[in-house]
């Protein structure tokens, strides 16, 4: 006599699978949000501590692992220092020119942003760099949709969810991230999109526009979701979209999205 396929165990397994599929695909938005908020509130002090300890350990281990590379790195830095000294003198001249150009382009005056600094206390455990958690939330006036930058006015993402003392920020590499952008050198306009944590691309650029490798990409401010003139990154590769209607460019983000420590939320 053959073995019974639908054993009690198999039925339990199938029941869990069906319920899970139902929850994943038909879950009404925000149904579990109160539970998530409660757990995060309870875990907040531990999360912050564990994350900081984890980061320190990782830094220590990577330092220990790369000790033999330090001398090589030192030689490289000495050379780079000579180069930077000469470049610095050139940049002083360019500073004036830059101020003039910024006025002409009507870029956002970075110094006038009302910034709220936040320490990163958590990140996407899958290591894809999709989102980060910061230690500031509703209590200091952070709201959903606010732009998040790092010190030099480099856009890293936007606030997706806000809790009492923390907020979740989806980064530029997140699949749901979309920023209206333009090429500073050529003026080509497009939309900077995340590619499921794998990187960012400048998409929907008309075939008539020009994109060059090495060009700087800035936020255009269209749509009003992000301020104009925030640095997004540099073009790494130019290609044609699958439907051949648009141009695409792989963009190297201006910030290392996987190793952020302090970010600034633009509150105004």
């Amino acid at each position, binding site marked *: 006599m053959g073995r019974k396929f639908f054993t009690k165990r198999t039925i339990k397994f199938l029941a869990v699978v069906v319920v*899970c599929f139902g929850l994943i695909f038909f879950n009404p938005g925000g149904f579990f949000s109160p539970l998530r908020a409660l757990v995060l509130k309870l875990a907040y002090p531990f999360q912050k501590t564990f994350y900081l300890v984890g980061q320190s350990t990782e830094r220590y281990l990577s330092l220990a692992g790369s000790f033999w590379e330090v001398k090589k790195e030192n030689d490289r830095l000495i050379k780079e220092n000579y180069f930077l000294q000469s470049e610095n003198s050139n940049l002083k001249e360019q500073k004036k020119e830059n101020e003039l150009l910024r006025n002409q382009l009507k870029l956002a005056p970075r110094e006038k942003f009302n910034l709220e600094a936040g320490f990163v206390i958590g990140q996407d455990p899958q290591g894809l760099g999709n989102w980060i958690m910061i230690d500031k939330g509703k209590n200091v006036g952070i709201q959903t949709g606010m732009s998040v930058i790092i010190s030099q006015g480099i856009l890293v993402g936007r606030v997706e969810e806000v809790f009492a003392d923390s907020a979740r920020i989806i980064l530029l590499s997140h699949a749901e991230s979309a920023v209206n952008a333009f090429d500073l050198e050529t003026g080509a306009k497009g939309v900077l999109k995340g590619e499921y944590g794998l990187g960012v691309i400048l998409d929907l650029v008309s075939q008539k526009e020009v994109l060059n490798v090495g060009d700087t990409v800035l936020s255009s401010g269209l749509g009003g979701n992000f301020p104009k003139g925030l640095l997004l990154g540099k073009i790494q590769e130019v290609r044609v979209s699958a439907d051949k209607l648009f141009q695409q460019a792989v963009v190297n983000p201006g910030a290392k999205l996987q190793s952020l420590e302090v970010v600034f939320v633009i509150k105004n």
Partner: protein
Amino acid sequence: MHLVPNLILLFVVFWTLKAGFEKTLKIAIFSGIILDIFYFWPIGINVLILVTVSFFARFLGRRFLVGDFFFRSLWLMVAVSGAVILNEFLTQLIFSGLAFFQKGIPFQFSFGWRIVLEIIFHLLTFAIIYWPLQKIEALISLYGRRIDPKYYVK
């Protein structure tokens, strides 16, 4: 490359091999919900993955329990490797499914060298945590025997 050990996955594999699917089911569901909360994923993804891993790992359970040291190690390695592959496969399947149903983006799967590194990394991690897990399991089973009234029925 950023590799993070999925300790809960390893714990579920270990527990299934030791105690079977039925006893691991509740742990897998609870752990899955907690993971989904902290991953900010729709609730159910990690539950589904952990329960599925447990369901399939149980097939190796009997072999694991009666085997000698060599075979026990072999079945452990097979179970951990299988769990990592299943985890990766189901994660990609579910997210591709969500992208397809919500945005019409075609299904995408990418199994590169990363999965091999993930397996090696998880095997090494499992080797480190195996002894502490055994101690914990022994402690819990001892505690379970002490409080289980059936244990005292003559």
